[in-house]
Structures are given as structure tokens and as C-alpha cells.
């Protein structure tokens, strides 16, 4: 979004533009990587690099720890396997007491039965009601489906997306971050942030410095 739309809604009427941080622009990924090492060593936490594509080696230069995403996906996958098997076992394989509940008359069954559908065992093609070989394909698909949801939405959640307003969008230059320019942003909310000294550090990095204001 352009700068004009990123006014922080929560801020009360501020006197003058609010300082949000600094943005340093580089022309190539190597300069960015070298600069990122310096910012990392300065001990900032609320800072980031912005690149049009993933730059190899930048994770190390920024000191990013491996994400926990694989574990989330693994958990979701295991849930999918079990869920798929239980779904099939329950709906095709067993009749739980819920059906008895449905057979009773009255309010309980009227209200609950849509939410407690019973299984309904019946034999088809001479296979046992719960026959593992025939249940594997669906268990596999549910595993993949849940894992894929976890991978995608987990990635978005860990990245804090969607987020339509962010200090970096305040800069008109930043539009090239998705094209051909490489940026470092250091946010003013960082505990180590000091407007003057951070600006000095930014100036020493060899890029074009821009103050983010809104």
C-alpha cells in the first residue's frame, strides 16, 4: 500500500509525523548480506531484510534460527492420519451408542442427533467393515491435506500475515523491494533503537538511508 494509506489507526492525533524506523537500500544482495551481518552484531531484534527473492546465505547473516514449521506440519500430518482412520472406522466400522440416543424419542434426540451422527456398518464387496488396506488411501489423503494446510497457514501465521499496514510501506522507495532492490529495515520499536545512533549505523552500511515516517 502506498504511504498515504498507512497512517496508524490507533495513534491519537500526533503532532508531526511519527518516526517509525530507518530503511536502508542496497543495489545487490551481496552488499545487503554484508550489511545484515553488521546489524545483527549490533544486537537489534526488530529488524529485517527485504528482498525480491530469497537470498542464499542471508539467514545466516541475519542469525535467523530454524523455524518450528516442520514440527507443526508433522503434528498436523499425524492428526490427519489418525483423523482419517478414525473417520473411516467410525462411519463404516462401528455403531456407537449415539444411534441408541437417536432411537429414543424426545428433545435429546431431536437436538443432538444432527451433531452425533452414528456410524453405519455394512459389508460391501466382501470386505470386513474396517479393512485397513482399503482405508489407507483416504488416511493418506487426509494426512497430506492437513499437513499442507498446516504448512501454508502455519507459514502465514508465523510470518504474521496478512498484515496490510507496516512501517516499511511508508516509504515510496520500498516499492522496489519486490522488484530489484534490497532493503534493511530497523524499526523504532526495537529496544536498542536510538534515533541518532541507529541513523549513524545505517549511514555506515553503504546503502541509501531513508527515515520511515507516518
Amino acid at each position: 500500500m502506498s504511504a498515504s494509506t498507512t497512517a496508524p489507526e490507533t495513534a491519537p492525533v500526533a503532532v508531526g509525523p511519527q518516526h517509525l524506523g530507518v530503511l536502508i537500500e542496497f543495489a545487490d544482495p551481496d552488499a545487503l548480506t554484508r550489511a545484515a551481518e553488521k546489524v545483527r552484531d549490533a544486537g537489534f531484534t526488530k529488524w529485517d531484510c527485504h528482498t525480491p527473492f530469497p537470498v542464499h546465505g542471508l539467514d545466516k547473516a541475519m542469525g535467523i534460527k530454524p523455524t518450528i514449521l516442520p514440527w507443526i506440519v508433522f503434528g498436523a500430518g499425524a492428526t490427519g492420519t489418525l483423523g482419517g482412520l478414525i473417520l473411516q472406522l467410525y462411519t463404516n466400522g462401528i455403531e456407537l451408542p449415539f444411534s441408541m440416543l437417536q432411537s429414543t424419542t424426545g428433545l435429546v434426540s431431536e437436538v443432538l442427533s444432527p451433531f452425533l451422527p452414528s456410524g453405519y456398518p455394512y459389508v460391501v464387496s466382501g470386505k470386513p467393515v474396517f479393512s485397513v488396506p482399503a482405508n489407507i488411501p483416504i488416511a493418506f489423503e487426509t494426512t497430506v491435506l492437513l499437513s499442507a494446510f498446516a504448512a501454508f497457514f502455519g507459514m502465514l501465521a508465523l510470518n504474521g500475515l496478512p498484515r496490510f499496514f507496516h512501517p516499511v510501506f511508508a516509504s515510496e522507495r520500498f516499492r522496489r523491494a519486490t522488484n530489484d532492490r534490497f532493503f534493511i529495515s530497523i524499526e523504532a520499536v526495537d529496544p536498542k533503537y536510538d534515533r541518532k545512533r541507529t541513523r549513524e549505523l545505517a549511514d555506515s552500511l553503504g546503502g541509501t538511508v531513508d527515515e520511515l515516517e507516518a
Partner: protein
Amino acid sequence: MSTSMSTTAPPLPPGADGTICGVDQNTWDDPRARAPLITGGLGYPEITDTVCGVAEAPRPPRAWYIAFGVSATLTAILGCMIAYLFFTGVGVWGNTNPVFWAWDIVNFVWWVGIGHAGTLISAILFLFRQKWRTGINRAAEAMTIFAVICAGMFPGIHIGRVWMAYYLFPIPNQMDVWPQFRSPLMWDVFAVNTYLTVSALFWYMGLLPDLATMRDRATSRVKQIAYGIFALGWRGSNRGWHRYERAYLILAALSTPLVLSVHSVVSFDFATSQLPGWHTTIFPPYFVAGAIFSGFAMVVTLLVPVRALFGLKHLITMRHLENMNKIILVTGCMVGFAYGTEFFIAWYSGNPFEGFAFLARARAHYAWSYWTMIFCNVVAPQLFWFKSLRTSIPVMIVVAIFVNIGMWFERFVIIVTSLSADFLPAAWDYYSPTWVDMLTFLGSMGLFMTLFLLFCRYLPVVAIAEVKAVLPHHHHHPHPEGHGTPKPVSEVTT
């Protein structure tokens, strides 16, 4: 580092050592270097301009309008055919016959098969570090989704009583009876829907950074907001890229078995039965090979005009096309190998019904379809053994179309010949399609093309961020020349 080689070594081809490679000049093979994947010396901004220019142009080329007109008409015909089918019944098809699965299921399997190329490119080639995938994956994934949509339509309209379609899903009916999860048809529903969902997620995830590019380049407020909403506020953050790349790898690792499972499950529809010609254990890998085969043929068929029409020849290069043609050749050989194995086992088994089923395919009433299949799938791709032929646009277009036809006939041969003459001759009959069958199939192509044309018009046809990531970086070369600071195209001489 020195570049001296032994005295007999020939000079390096263009593009190998930082020189610029012209259009279609990157099909060389030299073990000392990898051919460039992007020609014309394009740098980061030129890549962005080239790809975004397609969607940003005020109006598309005239050919786009013509194609869109034709495919929209066909889509309308599809709508009419479906309406006619719903109001009249499945009797309007030729399936009132022992061949109760015919064109609709042939079309279903054909479309699903075509839908395998995209995820293969985005997942399996990713795991194999085939960087050339970046030029074609976006369009192939889009094509995949549209093909799967066309495929999914057929079982849905095939059931006859369309208001019962909910019974395809795990929902109990009014008697609390659930769908039968032990049925391969149910596996199909799960497999195809999972595949569609995961492919769409994968595709959308790949689109995120490029939608952000479109947002940041947008000149009108409407476009800025539209692309902005779908870009989800992507800002190219490296903490974001870190998780994004991991998620991408995970999705690739998940999609790889998924893509194998989908066509395997489709093959289970046939192979779990007891019908000769259907019940054979090699079906799962053989169907998967055939699916990749037809999918790549469709990608070639679509991308050859796309790269010419939208000026993408530097990004979707001849090398990309050649690599796809090689995959067509490999999978064509695999399919041929499977045909051979089936015949061999039908003979070896000594089972008279098996033997009959396969001999009947080659020699009886549907022999024409069988030999069409053999010619298109096994013979035609053999042209690709020759480099001059697999790098020739007319040849590859013709072969790719042959493969598309051949793979449709493969499903026709499997489904129709086996059903039309199974065990007792009392249950035999000759199947012919009706005009509704044919127009429905044509209409599904219209739907596919309409969706694909809309995609070309409004979304980045090439994965911008991914292509940039495979431009030669300079981590091992501290002093970059040529690429680190991108050159304007005007400076490039080829």
C-alpha cells in the same frame, strides 16, 4: 580462478562464462558449465518488466481475443450440454450399454492426468533441484488447477441424479448411512479434492511474492487494492522468506507423494475390479507415468504459443521446452514399457481372459483406437531422440498434440475395450458416443482454455521471484560482472 583447460578442449558455448546468450541459444550441453536459464542478459528489473508487462498491458494481443472468443463459446456449449444432461438424464450419452463408463470417465482420467504436470514441476523437479522449473512452473500449476477442475466436473455430472452429488462427500444421508470409504470411487473423491486444494495452495503460495510485485507496480487504485489484498501484505521480509522457503520445501515434499497418489488412486478405480485389462498391478505407476506424459505434452502445447504471444522467449526458453520434451520422451518410454509388460504378463499368465482382453485391443473392433494410442504415445515421441527435432517448434507442437490425443485414446482403450467385451458374450456390446458426449468434451476444453486465458491476462505467467532466485548469484564470485547490477536490455547485443 583460472579457466585454462586441456589443450584439446573446445571453447565454452555462449552464456557459459558470463557472456550473454541470445534467444534459443541455450540448448547446448557442455559438462563444464550449465547453460543459462534466462537468455538475453535479463537482470532483475527486466524480468519484472517482462512478466508484469503481460498483465499490465492495456489490452492483450488480438490472438488472445480470438482464442477467448472461441473458448468462451465452447464453455457456453458445455453449459448447454450439462443443462440438457440434467434435464434429460444420462441417457443422452452413449452409456446405455455395457460400457457404462465411457467418455465421461475417459475425459475425467485424461484431465486429471494432464493436471499432473504442474505439481510435478513445482514439487518433484524442485526436490531434484531442477532450476529450469522456475520458468514454467507458474503456468503449469495454473494449468494443473484448471485441468483438475475440468476433471472433477465429469464424475459430478456423471452420477445422473445430480442432486445426490453431496453423497460424494463424507456426509451421512437421511438414513445415517455414510459413504463407503472402502470404495476406490470414494478414494478418488478424496484424492482429487486433496490434490486440487493442495495444488491451489501451492500455486497461491508461489504467487504471493509476485502479487506483491504487481501491487507495488500498480498504477491504478483498483489494481493496487485488488492485488494488495491477495498479496496479504507480503513485504519480502527475510524472516518471512525463511519460513516461506521451508513451507515451500514441505509442500513440495508433500505434493510429491500426493501427485503419485492421485493417479494411482484413479488407477485403483480400474485395477481393484476383476475385469481383464483393468485388474493389473502395474496400473498405479503406469498411470502416473502416463499422467506426467500427458501433462507435459499439454504444458508444451500451451507454453509454445504463450511465450511467443506475450514476449517471454527469454524466460521460457528453448532449453525449457527441450527439457520438457525429454521428459515426454522418458515418460513415453515408460508408458510403452508398461504396455509391453501388460502384454507380456497377459501372455505369460496363460489366463485366457487376460490374453483375450489384450489381443482384442490390438485386433478386434476397437483396434483403430489401440493403434492410434500406440502411434501417438509410443511412436511419435521417439522423434525426440534427435536434438534437432526436440528443439524444433513445429515438431514439438505436433508431437505434443499427438501425445494429448494418444493419452486420451489410452484411457478410451482401457475403459471402452475392456467393458465392451468382458467375459460372456451375452454382456458384450459396441459402444459409440453421442453428439452430447462429444460436445461436452469439447466444452470442457473450452472451460479449460477460458480459465487459462484469464490467468494469462491477469496474473504473472512466470514466477518472477523464483526466476530471479536462479539468476546466477555471485556468492563464490566476489566481484560480479554483468549480473550483479543488471544491465538494461538496450545495452545487450547478441
